[in-house]
């Protein structure tokens, strides 16, 4: 039996959890996921902890007081793709028959960093030189935005519309940090950060949260057992002169591999959670994930197909823009949301009755590559 199922999921609300330490924050998600799975702590044979800025052996710290009897704990870091990478590695171990049931959790406490854009990985001559000049992730995405507006039949209003859509979804999500609607006018009038990206086109930087999933090779007994159909992690290729910064090559590659692995056609995908750290990213990923043909991202957005009641709802949770982006938790939280969506448990933001779901996130922070990491997971019932 080579199927890996998601037996249970849970997450904390994303937001400011000032004063709460990592164990108390993450344990809520962990115990919630186990409860959702109908399992006990003793049923878990290994734990994967995804985190970026929380320091060493965070997994063991979080688990110390839960009495997990010394089972293996793996701490996983892959920037903003840490959570998805942890799920990917956990699935490997299950497929290799190392374990029957494992727990994956992601946690991040960005409020502890004091705000602002996340720091680059500067232990590198190129990244340090570029960061000294001002390279930060908002600038990377902004330059994609500039080029997008230059090459495509697209406007600043189109970029803003991504934020409007995802903020509207966030209103419906009790786990989201931003729960107020916004308008195109309000998005464009918010403070300019990195032209053409205004403040409301950037995911909030002050956010904490945790999310957990239980993965198992034992088929859950419920009616809508969610299966991991495809799981891919890819790394970025070194940039070359003449690269097209709009092609999101690493994510397009990860998506192709994931579709092939899952035996799924892009047209079969019924709901998507993707890495909208900035508005421009969502448009680029429409094409990289083959939700739209090359050059048709704006048409797809304008058509309404990616709204909650559309043909292929994208970021019904509110995405990173509204739900928030606690880095290590993000990839896991995407799978929490998609499990709820596939099982019809997403409440007011339920996006139809999807049978196949796709999660995508990327991790960046070094110069010289499109992104350092990109992960695509395909789930199905």
């Amino acid at each position, binding site marked *: 039996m080579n199927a890996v199922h998601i037996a249970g999921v849970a997450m904390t609300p994303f937001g400011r959890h000032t004063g709460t330490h990592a164990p108390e924050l993450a344990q809520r998600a962990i115990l919630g996921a186990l409860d959702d799975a109908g399992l006990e702590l003793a049923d878990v044979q290994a734990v994967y902890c995804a985190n970026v800025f929380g320091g060493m052996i965070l997994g063991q710290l979080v688990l110390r007081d839960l009495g997990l009897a010394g089972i293996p704990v793996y701490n996983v870091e892959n920037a903003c793709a840490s959570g998805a990478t942890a799920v990917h590695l956990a699935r490997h171990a299950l497929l290799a028959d190392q374990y029957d049931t494992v727990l994956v959790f992601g946690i991040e406490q960005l409020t502890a960093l004091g705000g602002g854009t996340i720091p680059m990985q500067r232990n590198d*001559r*190129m990244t340090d*030189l*570029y960061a*000294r*000049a*001002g*390279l930060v992730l*908002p*600038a990377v995405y*902004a*330059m*994609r*935005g*500039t*080029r997008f507006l*230059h090459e495509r039949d697209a406007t600043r209003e189109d970029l803003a519309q991504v934020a409007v859509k995802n903020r509207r979804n966030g209103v419906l999500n009790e786990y989201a940090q931003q729960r107020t609607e916004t308008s195109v006018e309000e998005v464009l009038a918010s*403070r*300019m*950060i*990195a*032209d*053409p*990206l205004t403040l409301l086109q950037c995911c909030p930087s002050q956010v904490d949260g945790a999310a957990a999933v239980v993965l198992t090779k034992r088929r859950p007994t419920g009616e809508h057992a969610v299966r991991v159909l495809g799981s891919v992690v890819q790394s970025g290729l070194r*940039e*070359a*002169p*003449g*690269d097209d*910064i709009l092609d999101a090559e690493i994510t397009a590659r990860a998506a192709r591999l994931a579709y092939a692995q899952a035996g799924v056609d892009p047209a079969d995908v019924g709901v998507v959670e993707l890495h909208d750290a900035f508005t421009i990213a969502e448009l680029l990923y429409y094409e990289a994930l083959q939700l739209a043909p090359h050059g048709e991202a704006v048409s797809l957005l304008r058509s309404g197909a990616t709204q909650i009641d559309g043909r292929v709802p994208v970021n019904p949770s509110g995405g990173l823009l509204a739900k928030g982006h606690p880095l290590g938790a993000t990839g896991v939280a995407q799978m929490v949301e998609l499990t709820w969506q596939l099982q019809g448990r997403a409440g007011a933001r339920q996006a139809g009755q999807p049978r196949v779901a796709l999660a995508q996130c990327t991790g960046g922070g070094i*110069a010289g590559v499109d992104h350092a990491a990109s992960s695509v997971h395909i789930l199905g019932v």
Partner: protein
Amino acid sequence: MSNPDSRLWSGSEPTRLLASQHLRSGALVFPPVAADSPLAAEYRPAALDPVGTVYSYTVIHPAARTGQAPYALGYVDLRGPVRIFGRLAGKARPAIGDRYRARPDADYGYTFEYAEDQR
């Protein structure tokens, strides 16, 4: 300004921004490969053309509390080919296709200055 960073600039006048050129493929790498890199023997120094064109850019607007004025950043494509990220000075709002000239800078090692000659 003080002497240009010798790791980034050629010693001869007029000083030129340096890259490393792969001996076999001819591909240019910027910034130059470090002298202590185990890959250093596979590269030779190459002086770059001083003027290139903007591939894309952004203008960063720092928060008011920083007191910093907005500044432009961008990718500049130089003949070689090689694409380099850096500060874009001399024009409040660059445009894609604008020509910029590399010059030494005490803070950043180099910046790109809007070129008078926009042929």
